[in-house]
């Protein structure tokens, strides 16, 4: 069964990687059918990815997401799902697909590098609270990646408009209004899950406060807390002070970069330290 899981994961990687080139080709030459094909290939990749996770779950006997290998794969799965959701609703986010497909491909490479055989979950991870914690992380990462990507596109498009240059590639982007709205919606959606991540994380931390890893846990909580405040500020300023456009996009983008920094640099680094 684990073999099947790996087979599907390999297939997924090939699909995601192809999707990147399909999207790239879609923008260099104007071929709408290629763009559509890319999106469907992405969907196919998402399905094989789902199968891979299901088989991994069967092999290990629990929900995937505990070992580093699994968490990278799960995070990529959530990001792909988030992107596909937005693309199928707007049909105009194919530029974002270029960005997403390369991000998830890198995630899968990372996953493969940290491969570990399926085994029982670390005892700690058996509790439902921990399950909730990791699921929330996945959803949060996906939603905030979409928000960050669309904020990045907003900034590119805005620069283009202010600079009075009309490049054909950027003309195929969604308008500023839509990009701004997608960022906002994705953050509204992701924020409760980010909150959940912190709440469940804090409870866990309190439970095993005595255990030696306190510095790691504490620094994680603090950094995530800062990110949380950043997004809270985004929402508050938007609703109360009418922030929109460039400043809001910058805030959303920095939140996303902070998140990536914590999840993939600070956390692994601290874990090695102890």
């Amino acid at each position, binding site marked *: 069964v684990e073999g099947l899981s790996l087979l599907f994961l390999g297939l997924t990687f090939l699909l995601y990687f192809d999707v990147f080139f399909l999207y790239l080709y879609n923008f260099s030459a104007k071929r709408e059918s290629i763009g559509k094909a890319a999106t469907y290939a992405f969907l196919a990749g998402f399905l094989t990815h789902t199968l891979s996770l299901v088989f991994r779950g069967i092999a290990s006997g629990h929900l995937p997401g505990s070992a580093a290998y699994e968490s990278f794969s799960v995070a990529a799965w959530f990001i792909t799902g988030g992107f596909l959701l937005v693309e199928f609703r707007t049909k105009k986010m194919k530029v974002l697909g270029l960005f997403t497909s390369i991000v998830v491909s890198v995630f899968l490479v990372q996953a493969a590098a940290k491969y570990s055989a399926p085994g029982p979950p670390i005892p700690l991870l058996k509790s439902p609270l921990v399950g909730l914690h990791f699921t929330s992380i996945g959803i949060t990462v996906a939603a905030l990646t979409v928000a960050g990507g669309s904020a990045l596109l907003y900034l590119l498009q805005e620069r283009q*408009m202010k600079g009075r240059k009309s490049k*054909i590639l950027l003309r195929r982007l969604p308008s*500023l209004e839509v990009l701004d709205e997608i960022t906002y919606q994705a953050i509204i959606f992701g924020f409760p899950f980010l909150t959940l991540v912190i709440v469940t994380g804090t409870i866990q931390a309190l439970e095993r406060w005595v255990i030696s890893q306190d510095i790691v846990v504490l620094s994680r909580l603090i950094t995530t807390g800062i990110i949380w405040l950043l997004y809270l500020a985004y929402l508050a300023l938007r609703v109360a002070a009418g922030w929109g456009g460039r400043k809001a996009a910058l805030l959303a983008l920095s939140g996303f970069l902070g998140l990536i920094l914590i999840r993939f640099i600070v956390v692994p680094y601290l874990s090695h330290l102890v």
Partner: protein
Amino acid sequence: MYLLVGGLSHKTAPVEIRETLEISLMKLDEALNDLLVRPSVKEGVIVSTCNRTEIYTIASEVPAGKEDILQFLSHYHEWDPGELAKYLYFYDNREAINHLFKVTSSLDSMVVGEAQILGQVKEAYAHALDRKATSIILNRLFNHAIAVGKKARSQTSIGESAVSISYAAVELAKQIFEDLTGHTVMILGAGEMGELTVQHLVDNGVSSVLVANRTPKRAEELAKRFKGRAVPFDHLVDYVAEADIVISSTAAQEYVINRKDMGRVISKRRGKPIFLIDIAVPRDIDPRVNKLENVFLYDIDDLEGVVKTNVAEREKEARKVHTIIHSEVDEFSAWLHSLDVTPTIAALRKKADEIRAAEVEKIMNKLNGLSEREKNLVRTLAGGIINKLLHQPIVKIKESTRQKDGYVYVESLRQLFDLQEVDGVGLKRKKNQK
């Protein structure tokens, strides 16, 4: 049977000439009748727009066809043929196919990539079809040409970017606001360009229009025209915040909207973007407002810059369209060539000869002990049957080419006898593609 096109366009004739030669849609039927009675003209389509008047025909001979087209145009418009001939161009066969494909893909248009011409050609063809002025060749040619036009637009960006100031403004507005429906535009001052831009914006869904003008009467007039609302010019800044798009073209010597005004507008709009189009000279809006967040200001030079980039972009795309046209012309010429009577007869003879040879060979193997003379008799018999059988059809088909629709027989003959090979190339290649 020759494919022949003759006519004039913006490339060969100035507007004073073109306007006298335009054939309006209402008169098209009458004109087609007049065209089709000419002796050499077998089929005809008249394409007439403000930029071109072209006569597409299937003619029995090229020189006679040219003469008939010239006579038709000069007679129809009461021109002296000698004088008119100076403005005309003619293309035949491959060149004619190439020309029509260029027309439908708008490479031959005044503004390369414009969308109207395809519709105009469709309409001209529909009229001719209705009048039964066309048959196999022109039907297939025009259907093919329309498909080429669509292909050029869908596979390249030739028609994508705006190449006029007012459309460029609409396009930019759509890059800020996805859908213009429900948005508000405000026009300051009057002027053709400003009004045209408002018109385009309204056509694209903008639902409410605010008008400010120093002359209240003028403001009322414009407001009425766009079903909008006139606002007092002296307090216009108070209303700017309501607008998503502002078009300014007043004759004022000083800034009508300064930076401080805009700062107030922006805080009132609570983060919603605003698009300012300043087409006045001297400018109406302080250029420094572009530095403010969520303000996008384009002056006339900026818009012209956008148009210039877009024109260059279209020229680049035109090269891709040429490549598409080239292969489509090849395909169509191959089909057209297959309708020639001589190669068809040759192909028929060749096929019959192959059958005869194969059958004789087969029977000879079974008939042992025949003398050389008897063998020759068998061969003569087989050859005689083939020749007698084919004689009449071949004579008839040669005659038929002198009639209208003669190639219908050629086409049928090819179908009936499954003659696909034309000089080894052409159709055969096309079959393989499918």
